[in-house]
């Protein structure tokens, strides 16, 4: 009988050999194919099933993962959703992820190389690979104030930065949306919500207007012209530039006018101080002709135009066009034609001037902490460009103070504080203007730069919503 027992044992071992073989086939040879199978949503479940790190503002989570009772275990929840929507973006099953949820995905989900050490420790200790939390440079009070300063139904953005570090203290845009509507796991509900949101005029859930929407800067661009003029060495505070009410544009029948009701008409020539103060167009068109397209473009580049920045969310590259005819160059010099900027770009121009001509890289991240609160990194300020010399920066500051003291930016005056600023009104064909303010305070020791743009407004509303609002923000920051 023992021989038969051995044979039966061989059969038993044979069966085990077969399942070892089939396991090898499934787990090794076929694994790749199975892992990429369309029906296999394990990767998705794995990403969504992990507790993702929170996005924090002043220690409080504005986006966090909370346990859920559905198959994903965790639901991303946004606190004060509308206020922070354009910063956090959303983390959604069907619609992907955007803004910080996308830009810091590796840190938040715990897969980033920066978290390699933590992952190894996790692997050995069996602890889960929890994502890191990301703390923002945003000041919640300033953020809320900026939000309140844009009226409901008004399209606009406000960017508040700290010139010496590039840290962004507030960044709001309206219209905004509730990312919770998109992060909902039920794909049908999410699709319906996305459809409804796409019907909101001026809103794209995929775009933060402050960093990705390119709009005409109008007269705030004259800061770039003035910087180029000073940097060229051909102009200084004494230079007198012809200031005709209308500058004929060669090869066309139209001319480039100064603002009809303004004070520009009182002088036939202007120095740069007066031209900035009253935002006269014709002197700057002539400076641009004189310096040439390349000089203006180069100065714009030094302020950050023409490149995409990662702060770490992607910032659209602002544009100064090239291969311009003389009329086009004249139009471009006053921030019209194809000059297109993001609100953040103008904040960078003001910040560079405020920071002795040194442009700091804009930054939204204050600190990254592992799940155990250990600090993983805290970005230190980075110089992006030496935009202008310190002397040029000082001169520009002086002229910008004059704009607020005596010129178009009077609404931003604060008793006892020197405020530097520049206003702008860009005409947009087929709708209302873009009203701008960009500036900083205090002028002698800039703590904060504020850039405001209100889109599709008439002149009166525009001036109401820019300089006076900037004043409120300056005061709020300086009184802290």
């Amino acid at each position: 009988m023992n021989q038969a027992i051995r044979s039966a044992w061989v059969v038993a071992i044979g069966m085990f050999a077969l399942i070892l073989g089939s396991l090898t086939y499934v787990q090794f040879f076929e694994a790749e194919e199975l892992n990429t199978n369309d029906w296999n949503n394990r990767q998705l479940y794995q990403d969504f099933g992990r507790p993702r790190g929170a996005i924090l503002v002043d220690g409080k989570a504005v986006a966090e993962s909370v346990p859920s009772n559905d198959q994903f275990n965790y639901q991303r929840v946004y606190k004060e959703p509308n206020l922070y929507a354009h910063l956090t973006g959303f983390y959604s099953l069907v619609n992907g992820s955007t803004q910080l949820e996308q830009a810091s995905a590796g840190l938040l989900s715990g897969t980033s190389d920066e978290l390699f050490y933590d992952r190894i420790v996790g692997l050995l200790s069996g602890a889960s690979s929890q994502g890191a939390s990301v703390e923002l440079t945003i000041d919640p009070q300033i953020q809320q104030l900026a939000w309140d300063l844009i009226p409901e139904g008004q399209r606009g953005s406000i960017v508040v930065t700290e010139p010496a570090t590039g840290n962004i203290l507030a960044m709001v845009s309206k219209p905004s949306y509730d990312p919770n509507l998109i992060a909902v796991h039920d794909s049908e509900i999410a699709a319906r919500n996305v459809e409804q949101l796409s019907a909101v005029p001026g809103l794209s859930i995929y775009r933060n207007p402050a960093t990705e929407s390119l709009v005409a800067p109008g007269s705030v661009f004259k800061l770039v012209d003035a910087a180029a003029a000073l940097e060229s060495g051909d102009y200084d505070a004494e230079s007198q530039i012809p200031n005709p009410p209308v500058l004929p544009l060669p090869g066309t029948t139209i001319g480039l006018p100064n603002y009809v009701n303004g004070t520009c008409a009182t002088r036939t020539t202007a120095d740069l101080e007066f031209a900035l103060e009253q935002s006269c167009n014709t002197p700057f068109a002539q400076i641009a002709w004189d310096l040439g397209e390349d000089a203006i473009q180069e100065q714009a580049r030094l302020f950050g135009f023409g490149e995409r920045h990662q702060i770490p969310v992607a910032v659209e590259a602002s544009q100064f066009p090239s291969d311009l005819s003389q009329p086009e160059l004249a139009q471009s010099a006053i921030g019209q034609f194809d000059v297109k900027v993001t609100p953040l770009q103008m904040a960078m121009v003001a910040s560079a001037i405020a920071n002795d001509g040194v442009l700091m890289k804009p930054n939204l991240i204050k600190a990254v902490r592992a799940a155990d609160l250990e600090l993983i990194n805290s970005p230190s300020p980075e110089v992006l460009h030496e935009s202008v010399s310190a002397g040029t920066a000082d001169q520009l500051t002086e002229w910008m103070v004059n704009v607020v003291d005596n010129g178009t930016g009077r609404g931003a005056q604060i008793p006892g504080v020197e405020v530097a600023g520049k206003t702008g009104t860009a005409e947009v064909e087929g709708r209302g203007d873009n009203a701008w303010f960009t500036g900083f305070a205090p002028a002698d020791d800039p703590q904060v730069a504020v850039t405001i743009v209100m889109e599709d407004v008439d002149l009166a509303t525009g001036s109401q919503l820019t300089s006076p609002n900037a004043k409120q923000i300056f005061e709020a920051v300086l009184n802290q």
Partner: protein
Amino acid sequence: MSDVLTVPRSRRNVEAALLLLAFAVAVGANFVAGLEREDPFNDYFWRQAATLVGMGILVHLILRIRAKYADPVILPIVIALNGIGLAMIHRLDLPRMENPDFVPVAPQQLTWTAVAIVAASVLLIFLRDHRILRRFTYISLIVSALLLLLPLTPLGLEINGARIWINVGFGTFQPGEVAKITLAIFFAGYLSTNRDLILLAGKKLGPLQLPRFKDLAPMIAAWLVSIGVLILQRDLGSSILFFGLFMAMIYVATSRVSWVLIGLAMIGVGAFIALQLFSHVALRFDSWLNAFDPEVYNRAPGGSQQVVQGLFGLANGGLAGTGFGQGRPDLVTYANSDMIIAALGEELGMIGVFAIILLYILLVSRGFRAALGTKDGFGKLLACGLSFTIALQCFVVIGGITRLIPLTGLTTPFMSAGGSSLLANWIIVALLLLISETARRPVRTAAPSEQAAVPSASGRGALPRRPKEGSR
């Protein structure tokens, strides 16, 4: 008869050392399982650790007193497997704990573990020699029949299309699990008594010696039981198991390949008829062959989603696994029972499942080793049958999960959630331990100390034995 040298040493200390390893595996696995989502040292952790360690030591002590020559490897292997299973069941409970209606499975399984080990202990204490069971040959047949018929009575419950459960008040019970033991006892008793007759009679056809028709009766009976289980209870897995058990035992009893061929032919006929007549069998086959067909995948019930999701889990684990508690084995339906190997494969990887299967191979091999070593035909047949059942059950369930064969609902011995399976398998362990004890025990007539020093052929010969037994 036995050409295997039995070394008359107790080896209980080896068992104690291996038990420590098994405890480390079982308690360690449970610790890692809880690490992720809860306080790892909570009440349940201590309860599980205490139950496994306490029960393991209890059986060990009983063996020291009652069966000190029993195989030292079997108990540690089973404790380790039971512990890994409990840890995985507990781990699969955790994501569902937030649901207030959810009743965790692991504490029930832990209770069943205790019940099963107590049952095995009682068996070890009161059944001093497995040969006593031979007296119950025909009683076992009747008990088997009753057990298999129980689910068809009003006590029975139909779950997911299979009618193999009964309601026992505090829970459900699968009498078929116990029936595989009583059937093994019946087959062992019947075959060891009648094998001489079966062997001698019959015509020779070429190299095959054909059995007489009347000797085929038990095989036909076994075939009918299997088909009956398949038709009346719609349980393909148990059906395969019962028939495989019988085939292994009759082959070992007769050493005749002809029996195996006849058996395989009968399976073929049975399978063909079942495929034609029973939609649930046909659906199983379809889900197996066309698992990745969208229509088959989405079909409910009887779709291939379960097996495909199990494959995704295994693939996700890959070689090294995601780590205990890090994968998503909960995406697979019945992850803690039928599909527990997919769950373990995902989190422990191919390396981990190979280790588990090696434990099964060792366990089954120790069972066969006991069959080789024991002197009585009944014990040989019983040990073979029970060991082969464990191997076959692993093959059917893991083969089904890896799509080697169609998926059938069977438990993975010692690991899947399910009290009846645990109880039955622990009783099998007790029987294997008893049989291994008789296989390794020094002969009573010789002084143990002498026996230990000089194991001699004459010493073994002193055991009374029946003339034909063991000869081919």
